[in-house]
């Protein structure tokens, strides 16, 4: 299925053929349908990305066509080419039936071509978003973002909402939560996906060079500027620019950035010429925006311009339920990358990961899994492939998973306490407790009945 499949609905054979030839010169594969049933058949068989409706002598026909197409493919854009008619009737068709765009003849080919390109980009983005939704349902992943927790689902919804637009987005979240991945996903799901994605980390560029990195420079603009250089804004023209760690950008430069955002034009260092740029701006920070504002790390007017839409990424601790899915995903990905035999994690290895607090978030988890994948020589990553538990983790384990008894405790009492402690750990799941204790379920029930008879166990 090509993303440049177009169906032309045109009752006049000659008109249809000439429109088809025009679209072919622009790289489209167009099929002409001369009646509604042929058009609908083509929609179901060819799965086109766009319908060009060129038969608008009677707009009622077009309304019917669009309605029936919507029943088959709700997102398929329709571009209407109409004879001059009353604006009210056209507006009615456009609004009621959800036509993407309409033209009145005579047609301006340049505008027509531009609209077709945009409509196709939008249709492709919508189809890919639908694929991502299915991927989320099947695999718990959304593009490269992994996790099906409520917190991450909210993030995916926000990405879907904002991606098709050109709005600026402020992405916040602790270090290591995947802010750049979110930015890349927004870019990939936007109509700008085939255009450049440029990321600049404001904390990794020295203050003295940041202006030149962002806006470029002319030859001789400063000592060391041996040749002309384009800045990030020019490199990202028509695409997306991510300003990572925006809170680390010097205040003076924030003011210049604001001017560029407002004027949509940059001036290279050492140049008087303004260069127009069309850049979608994404910004990321691990600081709390309001706090950064109060501390003077971020200008209020810049924050206002960047924070048109904001996405907050949860820490790994806040989405612990995603940990096993994430860990398994990383094992698969990293084993493939390094050509290692590791395929999965043993239950004890997974349980070791569950105990950690992950202050470094997904980046830390990735580092730990990568090390284990590299070291593991078999298919299953075991507990010992990770480093030993950190000391505070051992304390937690001690409290949660161990039983301390004085030397000389009667064996019968040791057994009883171990059974009760295991039941506590399994949240009273007797089957699981019996498995852990290595006894049959029947034996466990017998022992519990005995404790009940002796008044050592109360069911309430």
């Amino acid at each position, binding site marked *: 299925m090509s993303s440049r499949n177009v169906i032309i609905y045109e009752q006049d054979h000659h008109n249809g053929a000439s429109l088809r030839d025009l679209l072919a010169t622009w790289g489209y594969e167009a099929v002409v349908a001369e009646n509604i049933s042929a058009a609908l058949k083509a929609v179901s068989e060819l799965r086109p990305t766009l319908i060009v409706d060129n038969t608008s002598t009677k707009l009622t026909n077009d309304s019917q066509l669009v309605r029936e197409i919507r029943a088959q493919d709700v997102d398929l854009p329709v571009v209407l080419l109409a004879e001059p008619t009353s604006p009210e009737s056209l507006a009615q068709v456009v609004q009621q039936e959800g036509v993407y765009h309409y033209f009145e003849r005579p047609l301006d080919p340049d505008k027509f071509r531009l609209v077709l390109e945009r409509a196709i980009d939008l249709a492709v983005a919508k189809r890919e978003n639908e694929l991502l939704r299915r991927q989320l349902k099947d695999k718990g992943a959304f593009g490269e973002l992994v996790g099906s927790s409520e917190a991450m689902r909210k993030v995916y919804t926000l990405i879907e909402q904002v991606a098709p637009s050109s709005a600026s987005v402020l992405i916040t979240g602790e270090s290591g939560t995947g802010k750049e991945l979110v930015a890349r996903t927004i870019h990939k799901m936007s109509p700008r996906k085939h255009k450049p994605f440029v990321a600049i980390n404001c904390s990794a560029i020295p203050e003295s060079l940041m202006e030149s990195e962002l806006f470029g420079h002319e030859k001789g603009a400063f000592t060391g500027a041996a040749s002309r250089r384009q800045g990030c804004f020019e490199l990202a023209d028509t695409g997306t620019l991510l300003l990572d760690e925006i809170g680390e950008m010097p205040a003076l430069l924030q003011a210049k950035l604001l001017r560029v955002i407002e004027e949509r034009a940059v001036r290279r260092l050492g140049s008087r010429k303004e260069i127009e740029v069309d850049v979608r701006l994404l910004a990321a920070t691990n600081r709390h925006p309001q706090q950064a504002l109060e501390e003077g790390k971020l200008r209020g007017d810049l924050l206002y311009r960047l924070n048109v839409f904001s996405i907050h990424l949860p820490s790994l601790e806040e989405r612990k339920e995603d940990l096993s899915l994430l860990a398994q995903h990383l094992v698969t990905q990293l084993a493939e990358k390094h050509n290692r035999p590791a395929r999965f994690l043993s239950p004890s290895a997974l349980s070791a990961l569950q105990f950690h607090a992950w*202050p470094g978030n997904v980046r830390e988890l990735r580092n730990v899994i990568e090390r284990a994948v590299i*070291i593991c020589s078999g298919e299953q990553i075991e507990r010992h492939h990770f*480093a030993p538990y950190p000391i505070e983790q051992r304390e937690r384990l001690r409290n949660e998973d161990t039983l301390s008894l004085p030397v000389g405790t009667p064996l019968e009492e040791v057994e009883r306490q171990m059974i009760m402690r295991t039941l506590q750990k399994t949240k009273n799941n007797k089957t699981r407790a019996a498995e852990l204790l290595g006894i049959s379920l029947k034996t466990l029930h017998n022992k519990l009945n005995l404790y009940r008879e002796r008044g050592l166990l109360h069911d309430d």
Partner: protein
Amino acid sequence: MTTEPSVLLFFIDGLGIGERGPFNPFDGLPAAAPLAIFSGESPERFRDGIVVPTDPSLGVAGRPQSASGQTTILTGVNAPALVGYHKQGFPNKALLEIIEQHSIFRQLKQLGVGPITFANAYTSRFFSERPRWVSATTAAVEAAGLQFRTVADLNDGAALYQDFTNQLLIERGEDVALRNEEEAAEVLARLCAAHRFTLYEYFITDKIGHAQDMVLAKKVLTSLARFLRELLTRLDLDRTTVILTSDHGNIEDLSIRNHTLHPVPTIVWGSKREKTAARIHDLTDITPAIVELLTNIN
């Protein structure tokens, strides 16, 4: 000589990012770039190196120390968190086990990345009277089954002593010639060209920090900075990424005998410096960054 991407990990013991002042030997020291880095100031750049102030505390209270800090740099495991404190001096059993299993040398060998090497030379005394306690780097080299470089290698121009001028070796009676910074840089650059991963360790800085010797500090730092600049001009930075880092602060504040609580500088040079610098936040990120550089060929 290999043309595949390579990494030099240049480890300097006891180098932090301090504030200017009479106790900071870098303050007012001419020709100390790229090592002279001051808190809150944009550093003077040399060959476009990116400075990442790096946290050596790793969430554990107390002054960062050598054994746990070096173990962390060489493995990516948060060693202070593992033992519950910052371990001084040489690694204990728990840290040695971590080094044995998880060292960068071991990881790279498992991945088939090679050749890899530790550039420092060991004297014959090390082999004849093996010390009971060894440094994290020595333990890592041994555990990975790498060959130690010797004084003979040094004389063949295939190794450096941690005091790259050889002055200390001569004082200890070794039959070696003095080297200037250019000659030492030439040797290390050659080793980097022949290997995919090279580790070089320098720890006079930490000793001077403990001795609180301002005169010696200025002399040694001037020489070290020059060695580094000479090295960087000899390396093919399109191929080799240089990561310079430290385990804790010390020499940047001679008002105290102890290690400092300052961040340490991680400086990254090379064509992949920006991406590499962006992924380093604390000392646990050094080893994964090296693995990434040597396994992500494109």
